[in-house]
């Protein structure tokens, strides 16, 4: 094991034991987003009344609220994992990479929290 080049420092240490976790989560959240997203597209296509009243009544139903909530959770989670891969591919400077992934986490959690709040307000008839 050398201590000069980056590859020399990690050679012989074995796997980091965390890469496959990200990879698996990417697949699980893909399917977790696929189901409510297809349901949303189907609902939008089938919806007869797309005025405020019609859409509001539809979104306030318990089943709609649950699936909209799952869509918000799944899509923000899946997007967070996917954008992380893009950042790791294109941002090589360590501090910039750290900052970019931190901003990504803040934006993903804030967006998901706001989206869930909107769904809850709709469901509880605010």
């Amino acid at each position: 094991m050398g201590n000069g080049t980056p590859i020399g420092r990690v050679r012989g240490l074995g796997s980091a034991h965390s890469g496959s976790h990200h990879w698996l989560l990417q697949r699980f959240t893909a399917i977790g987003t696929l189901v409510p997203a297809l349901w949303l597209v189907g609902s939008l296509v089938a919806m007869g009344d797309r005025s405020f009243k019609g859409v509001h009544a539809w979104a306030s139903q318990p089943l709609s609220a649950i699936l909209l909530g799952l869509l918000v959770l799944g899509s923000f989670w899946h997007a967070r994992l996917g954008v992380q891969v893009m950042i790791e591919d294109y941002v090589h400077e360590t501090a910039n990479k750290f900052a970019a992934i931190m901003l990504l986490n803040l934006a993903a959690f804030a967006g998901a929290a706001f989206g869930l709040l909107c769904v809850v307000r709709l469901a509880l008839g605010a």
Partner: protein
Amino acid sequence: MLVSILHRVSGNGLAFAGLAVLVWWLAALAGGEASYDAFVGHATAWYGRVVLVGLTWAFFNHLVSGVRHLVLDIGAGYELERNAFWSVLTPIAGVVLTVAFWAIVLLA
């Protein structure tokens, strides 16, 4: 290679623009009739239509090539001919589904 690039482009397009529009739509709906009408005003304007058609294409393209990824992940579909067939079909299917969606929404 094109399928892989399109998967990344459509995925990141959805992550940035798609999720912003999704949250905007939910917030406008939760905000009441006035805010929802303002959202619909932008969504049905020409620039809104351009963005929404782009996002639905990104959605269907990412969906179809994502399902292709899931199939490849379980170790199926690596035969040369079958792999080439689906890699040609996925971008076409993304466009066809986008056209079908808007045809139903606008004409039905």
